[in-house]
């Protein structure tokens, strides 16, 4: 019953539909690229460089004659992997921190966690990402760590905020009367009820992770060649923008559409999952 209602709401919300479709397209392309791409993305064929889009090369070729469509497919893999793991790090560490802070609200630990969060927020994220990759060398792994670190306080804060309002509810009191401890309550009652919010936030952080990965790759600090990545494709296209505009346009569009898709999906999910908004309709 409820599931059908939700499914209906999903279909009714145009933004969510568009968002999910775009996200699925790119996720699908990324998965498909493991098995098949129209061309081998590492194969260099200088003779057919800088070809405009054609029936053979749908998005044209780059300055090494590689097929841009294939590179975008494999690039999706890189972007999604980096952003996904970074979100995973943020959630994996941030959510427990937020739950703990909320469970021991007002305590020294809470204060400590929240001040620590503020502190991380005070550091300019892109700069620190550049610093990390500069000290430890540019690579996808370091990009993940750099992006992941800044996801931690975001999730900690969202979790704590939502958990705090849950802790005020009577059913938490009822669970305490039933003799359940803070950890058990956090796992059994708080976490499932903040999950909606975390999914929404996760989607948004995911899209921001994709942008961050693109930025880092653009300055050469992300995934290293020959692994294709959208940001580096843009960097490489820059001097050829008037020679072969397709080199700049397609990877750029890939980023825009993926981020757009995720954001639309995130917003749509929020509208769908947030009871306050749902009630107001």
């Amino acid at each position, binding site marked *: 019953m409820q599931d059908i209602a939700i499914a209906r709401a999903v279909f009714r919300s145009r933004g969510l539909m568009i968002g999910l479709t775009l996200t699925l397209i790119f996720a699908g392309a990324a998965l498909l690229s493991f098995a098949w791409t129209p061309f081998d993305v590492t194969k260099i064929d200088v003779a057919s460089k800088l070809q405009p889009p054609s029936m053979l090369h749908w998005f044209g070729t780059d300055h090494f004659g590689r097929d841009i469509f294939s590179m975008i497919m494999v690039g999706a893999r890189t972007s999604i992997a980096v952003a996904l793991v970074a979100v995973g790090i943020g959630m994996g560490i941030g959510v427990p921190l937020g739950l703990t802070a909320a469970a021991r609200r007002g305590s020294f630990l809470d204060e400590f966690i929240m*001040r620590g969060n*503020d*502190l991380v*927020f*005070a*550091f*300019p*994220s*892109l*700069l*620190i990402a*550049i*610093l990390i990759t*500069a*000290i430890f060398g540019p690579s996808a792994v370091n990009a993940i760590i750099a992006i992941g670190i800044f996801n931690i306080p975001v999730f900690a804060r969202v979790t704590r905020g939502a958990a705090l309002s849950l802790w005020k509810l009577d059913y938490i009191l009822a669970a305490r009367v039933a003799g359940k401890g803070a950890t058990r309550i956090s796992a059994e009652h708080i976490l499932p009820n903040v999950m909606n919010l975390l999914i929404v936030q996760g989607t948004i952080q995911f*899209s921001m992770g994709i*942008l961050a990965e*693109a*930025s880092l790759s*653009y*300055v050469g600090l992300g995934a290293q060649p020959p692994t294709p990545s959208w*940001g580096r494709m*843009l960097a490489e296209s*820059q001097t050829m*923008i*008037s020679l072969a*505009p397709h080199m*700049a346009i397609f990877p*750029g569009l890939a*980023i*825009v*559409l993926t*981020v*757009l898709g995720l*954001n*639309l999906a995130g*917003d749509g999910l929020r509208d769908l999952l947030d009871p306050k908004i749902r009630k*107001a309709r």
Partner: protein
Amino acid sequence: MIRYTLKRLQSLIISLIVASIVIFAAIEIVPGDPASFMLGVNAQPDTVAALREQLGLDVPLYQRYLNWIGGMLTGDFGVSYTYRTPVSDIIGERLWISLPLALYALSLTVLVAFPVGILAASRRGSATDVTVMGATQLGVAIPNFWFAMLMVLVFAINLRWFSAGGFPGWDAGFWVALKALTLPAIALALPQASILARVMRSSLLDTLSEDYIRTCRAKGLTRKQALWRHALRNALIPVLTIVGLQFSFLLAGAIIIENVFFLPGLGRLVFQSISQRDLIVVESVVMMLVFAVIVVNFAVDLAYAWVDPRLRGRQ
């Protein structure tokens, strides 16, 4: 109010101290001996020793930290290892580009976002609202460096309205300098304005659904009057937080845009210094940017109190 300010000030100072310790640790302790790190593995021992002395590495750790902090408090940031000039001079010079750029971009952001957000909120659900919000979704999704590239292609290369990059200096005249910052500021402002417009809209919608708006309407205020006289000021509270975050982002986050437009600003300075392993500069710039963020947050906190009287009274 004074009490509130003092309390904020106290946490400002603590944040600064902790931040400085973290930065000091990350840059001076983590990579091992900074001097050998900066000079590379094959450096002559006497060169390393000389640099160690120049960097004041021959004293205990805490002493070094105190020296560093003390120096910064008196405006002495040390001497750059590559440029051999005082770091404060370099930063001062770069700041004259980064700061105006950040302020310019922030002004554009606010000037665009506020009207757009207010328009969308006051016509919630209308075609205008849907269009504007769709456009902001797009704005958020566009990587600013890509947008910058496209703008250079159109406005500098094809139309030749603007120069493609570089900064002639403020000596060249205010308008000339401002013109050189225009494309970068727009590139920076686009995603930020989109974000801010969305925040503005949703914050206004939240306040518009508050009970006191209903009270106002019952008093005989029109929808518009209620929005302008009552909702707007209350809606500003979350908006201010975002504006504060955005300013710090714009100050530090212009790294990539500075690269695209070839602006000799702070971001590029850090980028260069990192690749040249000029740790003294990196350390000082990072500290300065963090300082800026913390001070801006402080200012935002004070602005809260200005907007929201509930905070003034609280002890």
